[in-house]
């Protein structure tokens, strides 16, 4: 839309900027439309799981505290139309979810959506810090390995990447706790804040960061290993392309070429993988959170799983998928920014 508004007479720089913004908007709109069937699919899978579960839907939704209040049961029966045919139940279920009605958690005595959104920020914080760590470590290690290819440094990076690619995150987390908390006493064993901390807002942020270090390492190093491997081979591949030779030929130094030409192009596969793995990162944080008692969605999921609190479990699955879809769209936009040639795939 905005692309059409840019008149042909406008200076080229502005036209280019606005058409890129238009392209980004088009991409955004298209991705949002594509997200609708995807979300519908997630909800249907959820519904199928509910139907497959032993026991009735009603029992599932109230399994927690054996709700025996006939009025409540009658209300649930009405809300979810349990006497209706299955297809109508599905429609009602979808309708309820569209209004963000994920059911009621009797354990916490509050709507499921409230319980989940309370825990979401902690998980997002852990996810973002882990991905940042993974990108920073992975990209720099990959660049080092590719610049010093077939040297000691290259081998060292490869061995480290292999190690962290194979180590289960929860185990790595426990080992980090043993080393840095139990033996050295440098970092807290778990949690997100020191109880009774009164050091004010700035101190509070530092306190959270202090608690964030180990979980970030435990979750992020696995992805750092993947990005290292991808980055290394991608750098080596791009370095052989013609435009790199051209850049060298026009007199740029090797470092200049590596940083401003090779690096930017070599990042593309890393960004692609980042998008694909968003769901894995979220899922991985579930286990890491349980190791470090990090008060995020993972801890909530673990509690709910142990107490068979199905509405919360299913709600986390739906909202988790929503987070993944949103993150994927963000990654697509970054991709477009890095490589303007690619508009919409």
């Amino acid at each position: 839309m905005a692309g059409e508004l840019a008149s042909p007479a406008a200076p080229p720089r502005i036209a280019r900027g606005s058409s890129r913004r238009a392209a980004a908007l088009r991409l955004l709109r298209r991705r949002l439309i594509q997200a609708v069937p995807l979300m519908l699919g997630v909800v249907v899978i959820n519904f199928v799981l509910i139907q497959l579960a032993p026991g009735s839907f009603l029992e599932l939704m109230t399994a927690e505290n054996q709700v025996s209040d006939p009025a409540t049961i009658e209300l649930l029966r009405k809300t979810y139309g349990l006497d209706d045919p299955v297809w109508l139940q599905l429609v009602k279920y979808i309708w309820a979810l569209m209004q963000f009605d994920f059911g009621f958690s009797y354990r916490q005595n509050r709507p499921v959506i409230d319980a989940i959104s309370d825990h979401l920020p902690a998980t997002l914080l852990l996810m973002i810090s882990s991905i940042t760590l993974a990108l920073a470590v992975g990209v720099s290690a990959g660049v080092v390995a590719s610049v010093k290819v077939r040297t000691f440094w290259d081998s060292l990076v490869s061995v480290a990447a292999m190690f962290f690619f194979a180590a289960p995150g929860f185990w790595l987390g426990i080992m980090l706790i043993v080393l840095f908390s139990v033996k050295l006493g440098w970092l807290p064993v778990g949690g997100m804040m020191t109880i009774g901390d009164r050091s004010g807002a700035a101190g509070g942020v530092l306190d959270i960061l202090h608690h964030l270090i180990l979980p970030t390492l435990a979750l992020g190093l696995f992805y750092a290993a993947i990005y290292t491997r991808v980055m290394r081979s991608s750098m080596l591949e791009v370095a052989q392309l013609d435009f790199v030779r051209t850049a060298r030929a026009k007199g740029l130094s090797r470092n200049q070429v590596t940083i401003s030409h090779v690096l930017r192009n070599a990042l593309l596969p890393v960004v692609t993988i980042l998008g694909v793995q968003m769901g894995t990162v979220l899922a991985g944080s579930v286990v890491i959170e349980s190791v470090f008692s990090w008060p995020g969605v993972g801890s909530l999921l673990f509690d709910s799983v142990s107490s068979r609190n199905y509405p919360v479990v299913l709600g986390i699955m739906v909202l988790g998928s929503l987070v993944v879809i949103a993150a994927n769209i963000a990654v697509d936009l970054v991709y477009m920014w890095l490589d303007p040639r690619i508009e919409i795939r």
Partner: protein
Amino acid sequence: MQRLEFIGRFARNRGALIGAVLILVVALMALLAPLFFPVDPLRIVGQPELWPGEDPDFPLGTDSLGRDMLSMIVHGARATLLIGLFASAVATLIGVSVGATAGYFGGWIDEIAMRAAELFQTIPNLIFVLTIVVILGSTLANIVIAIGIVSWTPIARMTRAEFLALRDREFVQACRAMGMGDFRIIAGEILPNALPPVIVLSSLVVAGAILFESAVSFLGLGDPNVASWGRLVGDGRQLIRSSWYICAIPGVAIMITVLCLNLIGDGLNDALNPKLRDR
């Protein structure tokens, strides 16, 4: 002759060779576990919390209840490897069926199959596994199926790509001209040619499945009758202050196994794509 060449190419990758040998050792260990350790690994045999090396009878020490760590590791190899293999088989079965159908028929079937793959990639995988296991029950079969359900998408994409490349080749056209049915062409003619890269991917799926299973067991949602390595790590979690080796040892076992499977995958990849070998 061709096979010898293949093995030669595989063996030239030293990491892959070491991985294959180590996996063989782990597999033998799993197979022969009852021979070496005829006593039930979950039986209490000694003093609790003996450190590795403290008592020559228990080279890897004992856990909080006084059970032999070495025996539990060796027996745990069975559970861990079997779950990994079966889950990967389930994933391969689903992935190959979906990918082959999508790639061969194309059109709206392809469209639906790829949307489904996208859907299964959107749901955070471990959360999906936990949800399935919690709702359907923590049995070995449910865990295997759940891991298979979240792991089939890369295999489907790979199979589809192979089928797209092969479906219009001369030998397939010849089969069609002879009036051969779709199913026979898919299963008997194209599939054998499409399989090699899929097998590479399956070996990586085994590694992933082992990590999934260990996470599920670690969280205490594994089959209560099976002592897999992940569960051993979870059991030792309470004792990290006094006896952290109880957590460390089974974790090392998981890591070595996954590492070897990854190395084998790399080696197979090199051997199948000689062009990429020198990268």
